[in-house]
């Protein structure tokens, strides 16, 4: 049975590569990049053989713990990407669970991430080849660590796939994990920079060494440092962690196999008996498109996660200041937000998918379609642009720059709207479908995606070049140039918006059925 399941996994991996030449080329390039990173990591681990044992422990334990944590949370962020061996698909075959569990576990090792983890685990054996006992313990500990990585990811993915029967639960968790990861990145990197004192790193490594994620990695380190009993104890505890993970998985698997479709219809979704935004926006076709867009932005995780990123990316500009660098970066927050909000609309129509037929069937005018779609970002921008401009001024203490900052943000936003109104009627490119993982890139789409994004971005940037020149004058201390910039942004932006929506509407009306055909094809 184990051989059969592993064979199945191997076949799936091979068939996945057989799809198309561009996909294969992309995979090879990605693979070469990955191999490079892996080579650096492996040579680093080998080099650590010559470092002081304490230092080597810090690197291996912290890195190993992060790796294991990554294995544990990856299935949540990546749901829908690798369901090749979803346990509930075995439910209709009468496979005893006792044969299925080892089969699925071993088959999980047949994957590229698992191969990488195995190689890294083997490299730590070299790192710890400092005494006979360490050489004996290190391979065992590495094997336990690798198996625990895989088992933890199976626990998460099985628990998650049980929960995914409830649409809302799955979507909420996935967005939450993204936000946590982004927040962790922002906070973590600034903390690491400030507190890179060696004693703190040692303390972190010492604590991690006693957590389930670090036990297996720290066992050979302890022995190499001479703490034989501590090392053996950790190895024993690591084996217990592995067994616990396997038991938890087995338990969850029982649920997945006995109730493969899950309890459906349990959680009731939004019960909102009114018209919602359809009652608040003007009762015109453009108002209806606006109300529909706003409702989607609030309820569809694909939009929610892009809103979250648009909120967080400008905040990332605070990092240099937090880590003691220049505060000038914080001035770029409002312009960055304006650019992201305006530019991001250039593929809005693709998020409709084939639901766009409603616009085709009702013959809604191009103007109403173009203008209505801008409503959610326009609303977000009305809060974010003044907010980020004020934050930038407050952090630098240069309030005289406010009109320039807000002006550049507004210019980017409005010209972005204009460019996006034309682009999204011309060439929609593939995006994840509704209900799919918002972070999964549809395969084979990258070339078109990159070209369209680059054209839209370049167009917005070039249109705002005069504005940027004037704003840099304000930055050098000419306050009046800031006000001039704001005035120019209003004129330039409105012109771009009016022209863009007019031109976009014409293209839209000429191409309506072709747009639906495009959306059907890229679905």
């Amino acid at each position: 049975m184990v051989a059969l399941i592993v064979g199945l996994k191997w076949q799936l991996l091979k068939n996945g590569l057989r799809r198309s030449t561009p996909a294969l080329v992309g995979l090879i390039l990605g693979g070469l990049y990955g191999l490079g990173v892996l080579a650096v990591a492996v040579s680093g681990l080998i080099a650590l053989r010559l470092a002081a044992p304490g230092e080597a422990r810090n690197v291996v334990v912290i890195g190993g713990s992060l790796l294991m944590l990554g294995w544990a949370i990856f299935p949540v962020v990546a749901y829908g990407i690798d369901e090749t061996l979803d346990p509930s698909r075995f439910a209709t075959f009468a496979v005893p669970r006792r044969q299925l569990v080892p089969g699925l576990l071993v088959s999980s090792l047949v994957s590229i991430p698992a191969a990488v983890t195995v190689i890294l685990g083997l490299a730590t054996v070299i790192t710890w080849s400092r005494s006979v006992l360490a050489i004996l313990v290190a391979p065992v500990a590495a094997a336990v660590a690798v198996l625990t990585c895989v088992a933890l990811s199976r626990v998460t993915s099985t628990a998650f796939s049980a929960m995914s029967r409830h649409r809302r639960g799955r979507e909420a968790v996935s967005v939450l994990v993204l936000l946590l990861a982004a927040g962790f990145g922002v906070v973590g990197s600034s903390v690491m920079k400030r507190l890179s004192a060696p004693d703190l790193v040692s303390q972190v490594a010492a604590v991690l060494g006693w957590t389930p994620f670090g036990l297996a990695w720290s066992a050979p380190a302890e022995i190499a440092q001479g703490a034989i009993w501590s090392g053996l104890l950790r190895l024993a505890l690591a084996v217990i962690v592995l067994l616990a993970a396997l038991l938890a998985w087995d338990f969850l698997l029982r649920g997945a196999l006995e109730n493969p479709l899950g309890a459906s219809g349990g959680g009731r979704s939004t019960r909102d008996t009114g018209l919602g935004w359809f009652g608040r926006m003007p009762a015109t076709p453009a108002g209806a498109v606006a109300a529909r867009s706003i409702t989607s932005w609030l309820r569809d995780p694909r939009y929610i996660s892009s809103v979250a990123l648009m909120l967080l990316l400008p905040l990332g500009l605070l990092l240099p200041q937090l880590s003691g660098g220049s505060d000038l970066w914080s001035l770029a927050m409002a312009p960055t937000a304006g650019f992201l909000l305006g530019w991001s609309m250039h593929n809005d129509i693709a998020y409709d998918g084939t639901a766009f037929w409603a616009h085709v069937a009702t013959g809604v005018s191009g103007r109403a379609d173009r203008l209505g779609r801008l409503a959610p970002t326009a609303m977000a921008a009305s809060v974010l642009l003044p907010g980020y401009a004020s934050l930038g001024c407050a952090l630098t203490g240069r309030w005289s720059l406010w009109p320039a900052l807000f002006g550049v943000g507004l210019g980017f936003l409005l010209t972005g709207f204009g460019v996006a109104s034309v682009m999204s009627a011309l060439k929609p490119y593939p995006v994840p479908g509704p209900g799919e993982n918002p972070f999964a890139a549809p395969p084979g789409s990258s070339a078109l995606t990159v070209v369209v994004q680059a054209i839209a971005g370049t167009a917005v940037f070039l249109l705002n070049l005069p504005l940027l020149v004037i704003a840099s004058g304000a930055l050098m201390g000419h306050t009046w140039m800031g006000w001039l910039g704001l005035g120019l942004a209003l004129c330039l932006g409105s012109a771009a918006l009016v022209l863009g929506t007019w031109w976009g509407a014409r293209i839209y009306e000429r191409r309506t059925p072709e747009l639906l055909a495009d959306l059907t094809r890229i679905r």
Partner: protein
Amino acid sequence: MPSAGSSAALSLRGLSKTFGSTLAVDRLDLEVPRGSFFGFVGPNGAGKTTTLSMATGLLRPDTGTAHIMGHDVWSDTVRAKQLVGILPDGLRLFDRLTGLQLICYSGLLRGMDRDTVAERAHELLGALGLDQEAGTLVVDYSAGMTKKISLACALIHAPRLLVLDEPFESVDPISTSTIRQILEGYAASGGTVILSSHVMDLVQRLCDRVAIVAQGRIRAAGTLEEVRSGMTLEERFVQLIGGQTNVGEGLAWLRSSSG
């Protein structure tokens, strides 16, 4: 210009569509008289959905014309689209809206005023038995409920012609009966219905005119009596399309009589 097709609810002339190297619809002509309940039947891949999409403005034909109540779908687009309500097959809905919101969206997109839209939406939800689910997101609807809400979206602007692609697919008997009653009432008051289906019995009971389509061409069209010529519609269909006759002769091991 009122053409010969002005008396017909839908008139298709020489419609063709090629996808890559496959000819999906091949110079197809079809006349659907006003007030008829028209069944459009054919095997999988016969070109039913392609034809209905081209007839309603969702897909541009390679050649040929489509007229709805005498208005050219591809030149007098706005007028033609006002007269028709459609329920497509295999296309998504804006499923993050509640049922009520989705119906209202269809009405508001057509420029109707909000009070009329809200009033009609509530009436439609009541008639379709969906009033309990008006506030539920469409993504959480069952297949039958989704078909019913799509029908409501097609009806909100009181169209003169309804074009329904597989309206009964994966719909339970109770919802089927609800949809049937609404369609029969609509047809009785002078509306025209075109529906495509795989279920011959249903078409035979509901429709007064039928067309059988295969490989992108009409094989037979006319009143139900003319087309079925004494047989049941299903027998006539199999006779025209040429179904497999000796089904299952080789599957000896499947017969359990020996055991």
